[in-house]
């Protein structure tokens, strides 16, 4: 819990490299730089190559072939068997004015990861790259991570009962390769690299867009002072996050846990006292 009540949050926004170092806090004394994704949705063309490449490389099973009927998004959402999800937003604002927003969503690999905090078996772990992965041979399918994720990323797979999500291609990046989705992205909407480099690049791109008059452009989850301590996978969006199905101001649930434990202790004490007192009075 000490990881959540840090002075780091009181000191306000840290600079790109000054955020918390999740790998070091997890006990990696000597570790490679924190790696992540910068998804620049302003150049996403909705081709879904990332979804396909992810499924292929990670051997993620098929999870339904239905058409949603709402848009070109027939995937719907991230889940145990969908680790990249391309959202299609159609906006018609005024006569003659419309636009499409497309965005490839993924696990955020949060600095303060709710799924990792609540996992009771230790199946979810932090890697030396600062990413968060599920160890399938440890997970017992309790489903706690599913409810703890503020983004609705991780899910429990019906077929094997275990929790699954994006690994940021732990196997590939360990060998110096680019994750499958970023490799397959034809427009470099998905960029992979050391997180501090990605943050600089994202800021430059944002400045360019603002200069060109695209006032709606904003970065999402890039700030180490936000509710999840900044994410390993962050985004450049062209509208408010909720339009893409993302929470506008997510806060990791475990930040309130110390307070919850105090209330639990007080409540348990009250119950014990009430039970003890209930036996007082006239003896039979």
């Amino acid at each position, binding site marked *: *819990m000490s990881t959540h009540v840090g002075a780091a949050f009181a000191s306000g926004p840290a600079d790109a490299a000054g955020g918390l170092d999740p790998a070091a806090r997890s006990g990696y004394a000597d570790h490679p730089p924190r790696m992540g994704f910068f998804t620049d949705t302003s150049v996403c*063309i909705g081709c879904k190559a990332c979804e396909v490449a992810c499924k292929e490389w990670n051997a993620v099973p098929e999870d339904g072939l239905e058409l949603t009927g709402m848009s070109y998004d027939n995937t719907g959402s991230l889940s145990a068997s969908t680790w990249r999800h391309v959202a299609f937003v159609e906006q018609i604002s005024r006569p003659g004015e419309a636009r499409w927003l497309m965005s490839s969503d993924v696990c955020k690999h949060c600095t303060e990861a709710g799924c990792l905090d609540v996992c009771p078996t230790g199946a979810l772990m932090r890697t030396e790259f600062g990413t968060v992965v599920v160890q399938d041979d440890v997970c017992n399918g309790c489903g706690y991570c599913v*409810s703890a994720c503020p983004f609705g990323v991780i899910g429990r797979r019906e077929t094997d009962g275990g929790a699954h999500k994006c690994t940021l291609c732990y196997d590939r990046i360990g060998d110096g390769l680019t994750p499958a989705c970023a490799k397959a992205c034809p427009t470099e909407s998905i960029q992979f690299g050391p997180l501090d480099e990605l943050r600089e690049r994202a800021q430059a791109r944002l400045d360019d867009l603002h200069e060109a008059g*695209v006032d709606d452009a904003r970065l999402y989850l890039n700030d180490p002072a936000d509710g999840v301590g900044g994410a390993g996978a962050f985004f450049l969006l062209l509208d408010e996050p909720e339009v893409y*199905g993302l929470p506008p101001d997510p806060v990791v649930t475990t930040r309130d846990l110390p307070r919850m434990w105090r209330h639990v202790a007080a409540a*348990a004490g009250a119950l014990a006292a009430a*039970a003890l007192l209930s036996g007082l009075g006239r*003896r039979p």
Partner: protein
Amino acid sequence: MTATENRRHQARGEELMVPQAEFRSYYGLPVIKEPVWGVRDVAGYLFFGGLAGASSALAASAELSGRHELARVAKTAAAGAIGLSALALVHDLGRPARFHHMLRVFKPTSPMSVGSWLLTAYGPAAGVAAASAVTGLLPGVGRAATVAAAVTGPGVAAYTAALLADTAVPAWHDAHPELPYLFVSSAATAAGGLGLMLARTEQAAPARNLAMAGAAAEITVRSRMFQRLGPGAEPYQSGRAGRLLDAAEMLTVGGLTAAAIGGRNRVLAAVAGAALVASSALTRFGVFYAGRASARDPKYTITPQKDRIRAASPPRAQDLPAGRHGAGLSPLPPPRDRAQDHPGPQPENDQIDDHLPGDHQPGHVGGRGDVTEPDGGEHGDGEVQRVGVVHRLAEVAGRDAGQHEIRAGEQQQEQRDRDA
């Protein structure tokens, strides 16, 4: 829906299904995942775990005051209830054969981990206490187990509140300051109620006291919780959760009254006890369903977060509701050339940059090659033309994009309600 759109909406005299629904969403889809926990297993465990924990505390109190029959009833109930709990918890796992993985680590950041260790200490103690009380064997061991179960039992009854609150589920998380007190009150109500039902009247005084204290506390905590939550209490007050919690409150009040006026009448005491046990179960199922409903509807995730943003900072130009939706019309500037920035050499990208201009030649497959062009010169206009028909249809229907999004959400919600 933005504020401006909302005003326009009301000016036309239309009734909003959800008042002040000032939020936008992705086709009304949920932001977070609905809990995968089964209702019978986990809501059932909330009830049985609470019943067990409070019963163990009641048993110790009864034994201390020389009411051995009540103590035996409470110990037996505790052992039975915690046995059912263990079965339910293992059954709810996606991989039940790995239930023992719960004890690989101890993590205070995980209420489930803390709970697993608590149950590991409490369960056997409750079992031994009951076995000794029923058989009369090993009274010394039985007494020690009774004390151990009474010490850990209230923890078992209370920690389940943190188990639910330490999630992203809005109705559960936002209730975290009251949920532990609601849960121990409910546990006391159940344990006292069961004692009132099963023990002889001469012995039942501690059970009656505990049940009445629990019921009174439950009514108070619940109303304070709803008051503080304000609009956030809606998941608890509507739908299936609302019906269950309303019924629970009626049973609590009825049981409390019956226990107060006729607790010394054997029949009335049994009826009062049954009502209180039932009310506790309904409360747990109600809380469980409220969480599920709040996870399913993006409104409960998005609206409080938007309110938090608005409260924290004055609106910036980019946050204003009447944002420039036309931004897609003006060409987005191309990304800066990043070829040198890449961590490793990626010759493919250079090739793409080189051959892209060729894709503009007329007659190239479907003319779609330009879509992959990073500079987005003309294709922005192309997209507008393609969605032009959709727009005209929307115009005929008299709806703008924001309303369209909300309505899609409402319809999906209604559909889900019907399915449920």
